C-alpha cells in the first residue's frame, strides 16, 4: 500500500522522466553507435566496439567539407538575421508608427508557415529570376526564416527594459550614441544573444528549406540525408555526439558565468 501511495504521489515525476528518456534515447543511440565498427555500408546494427571513427572524423569524402560549409552559412546567417532582427525589434517596441499591425503579421507568418511551403515558394522566385542556386540562395533563405525568431527573442527582452535607465543616462549628459552603446546595448545583450544562438541552431540544422534552394551545394544536413540513402558512415554519429556534448558544455559554461555575475551583483 505504501508503494501504491508513493507511486500515486510521484506519478507526474515518473511520467515526466519517461518523456525525458524518450527525448534523450536517440542521443544515447547516436553516441553508442559512434563507437561501432559496422559491417557494410549502414551503421544501424551493433557489431563491434571501435574508436576508429573518432580518430578520423574527416575520413569520409565530403563530410568535413559539408560541415564547414554549414558552419559558414550558419555564421553569416546568424550575423545577418541578428542585425536585421534586432533593428526591427527595437523599432517595434520603442516607437509608435503606422502599419505596426501589418509588420507584426509579416514577422509572425514565417514562423507559422510549414517549411515546405516557404521552401517551395522561394524556389519558384529563384527559378523565375534565373538565380544560380548555391551558397547565396541558401544564405538568403536562412536569413529570411531566422529573422522572425530573432525579432521575437530580442523583443521579449527589450520590452522588459526600463526606459528610465536610458533617460537617466541622458540626464547625465550622455549623447544618443553613448546611451545606446553604454546602456541600451548591454541591457539588451542577453536577448540578442538568445536570438543569435537560436538563429545559429536553426540555420545549422535546417534541411527542408536548404534541400529546395541549394542546387548541387551540399550542407551537413544534406550530406546526412544523402548518406541515409547510400549508406551512413560512423563519422556522422561522431559529429552528432560532438555537437550534443559541445552544446551541453556551452550551456553549462554560460550558466556558470551568469551565476558568478549574479553573485557579484548581490
Amino acid at each position: 500500500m505504501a508503494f501504491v501511495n508513493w507511486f500515486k504521489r510521484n506519478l507526474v515525476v515518473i511520467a515526466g522522466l519517461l518523456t525525458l528518456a524518450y527525448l534523450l534515447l536517440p542521443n544515447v543511440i547516436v553516441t553508442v553507435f559512434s563507437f561501432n565498427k559496422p559491417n557494410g555500408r549502414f551503421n544501424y546494427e551493433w557489431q563491434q566496439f571501435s574508436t576508429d571513427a573518432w580518430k578520423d572524423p574527416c575520413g569520409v569524402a565530403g563530410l568535413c567539407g559539408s560541415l564547414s560549409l554549414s558552419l559558414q552559412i550558419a555564421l553569416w546567417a546568424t550575423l545577418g538575421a541578428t542585425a536585421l532582427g534586432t533593428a526591427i525589434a527595437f523599432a517595434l517596441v520603442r516607437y509608435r508608427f503606422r502599419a505596426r499591425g501589418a509588420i507584426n503579421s509579416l514577422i509572425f507568418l514565417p514562423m507559422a508557415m510549414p517549411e515546405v511551403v516557404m521552401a517551395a515558394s522561394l524556389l519558384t522566385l529563384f527559378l523565375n529570376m534565373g538565380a544560380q542556386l548555391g551558397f547565396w540562395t541558401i544564405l538568403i533563405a536562412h536569413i529570411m526564416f531566422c529573422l522572425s525568431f530573432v525579432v521575437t527573442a530580442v523583443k521579449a527582452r527589450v520590452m522588459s527594459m526600463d526606459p528610465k535607465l536610458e533617460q537617466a543616462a541622458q540626464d547625465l549628459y550622455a549623447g544618443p550614441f553613448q546611451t545606446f552603446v553604454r546602456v541600451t546595448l548591454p541591457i539588451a545583450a542577453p536577448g540578442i544573444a538568445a536570438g543569435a544562438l537560436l538563429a545559429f541552431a536553426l540555420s545549422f540544422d535546417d534541411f527542408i528549406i536548404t534541400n529546395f534552394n541549394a542546387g548541387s551545394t551540399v550542407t551537413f544536413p544534406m550530406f546526412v540525408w544523402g548518406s541515409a540513402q547510400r549508406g551512413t558512415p560512423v563519422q556522422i554519429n561522431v559529429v552528432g555526439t560532438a555537437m550534443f556534448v559541445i552544446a551541453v558544455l556551452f550551456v553549462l559554461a554560460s550558466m556558470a558565468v551568469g551565476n558568478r555575475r549574479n553573485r557579484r551583483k548581490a
Partner: protein
Amino acid sequence: MSTLTEAPPPLTPPAPEPEKPPRKRGRWTPYWLLLPGILWLVVFFAAPMIYQASTSVQTGSLEEGYKVTWHFVTYWDALSEYWPQFLRSVAYAASATVLCLLLGYPLAYLIAFRAGRWRNLIMILVIAPFFTSFLIRTLAWKTILADGGPVVGALNTLHVLDVTGWLGWTSGDRVLATPLAVVCGLTYNFLPFMILPLYTSLERIDGRLHEAARDLYAKPSTVFRKVTFPLSMPGVVSGTLLTFIPATGDYVNASLLGSADTGMIGNVIQSQFLRVLDYPTAAALSFILMAAILAMVTLYIRKSGTEDLV
C-alpha cells in the same frame, strides 16, 4: 492573396507595452530601423508567395516555358490525385500533436513545479538535443525500431503489435516503414516545441492558487482540472500549433521512417518540385496546404476560445 492577409494572432501573448515611450529621437528613425529587415521579408517571403500563386495557374512545359493561363483545373487535379496524402498528413500530424501533449505535459509540469534544483539540468537536457542534427537523431530511430530489435520484441511479447496491426498502424512484425514509426518520429521531433510553451505558461501560475484550492478541500485531480489546466491553456494552444503546423508539412520523418504507403503531402510537394519538375502542380499543392492549415488554425483558435490569450 486573401490567405496571406488573414494572419492568425501571434503564438505568444503580447506583453504589455512600456508605460511611457522614451523621447522621440526623430520621426523617421523607426522606418530606418525597419527598412532592411522588412525589405528582406517582403522580397524573400511575401513576394515568393505571390510568385507561387501565379505559378500555380500557369500551363506549359519545361522546354517551352510556362505562361499564366488562369488554369485553375490544376488545383482540382492536384486535389483529386493527392487527397490521400493530404488526409494522411493531417491524421499523422494530429496524432503526433495529441501524443506530444500527453507526453509533454507531465515533463513541463515536472520542470515547473517538482524539479527543484534539478530544473536547470532538465531544461538543458530538453534543449540540447536541438543541437545534434535532427536528421541524425531521426536516423537513430531506425536502430531503435529495427526489425527484431528489443523494442519490437517487447511490443510483440506484450501483444501490442497485434492491436496496432489490427488498427492498421503497423503491419506484421514490423514497426519501421509503418504509420506508427512515422508518428513516433514526428512526436519525437516536435516534442520540445510542445514542452517549452507549456512550461512557460505553467511557470507563470501562482503556487498560492494551488494552496487555496487545496485549502478548499479540492482533490489533487480537481486542482488540476479546475485550476492548473485552465490556467495553462495559452501554453496548450501555442504548443499544439507549434507542433501541428510544422508536422503537417514535414516529409523527413515519412521518408526516413516510413514507406511508400506512408507518404505525406510534403513528400509529394518535394518530389513534384525537385524530381518531376511539374511546377504548377507543386505550387498548387503547396498553396492548398497553406490554405488548409490557416483555415484549421483559425477554426481551432476560435473553438478553444482563447483568441485574446494567444
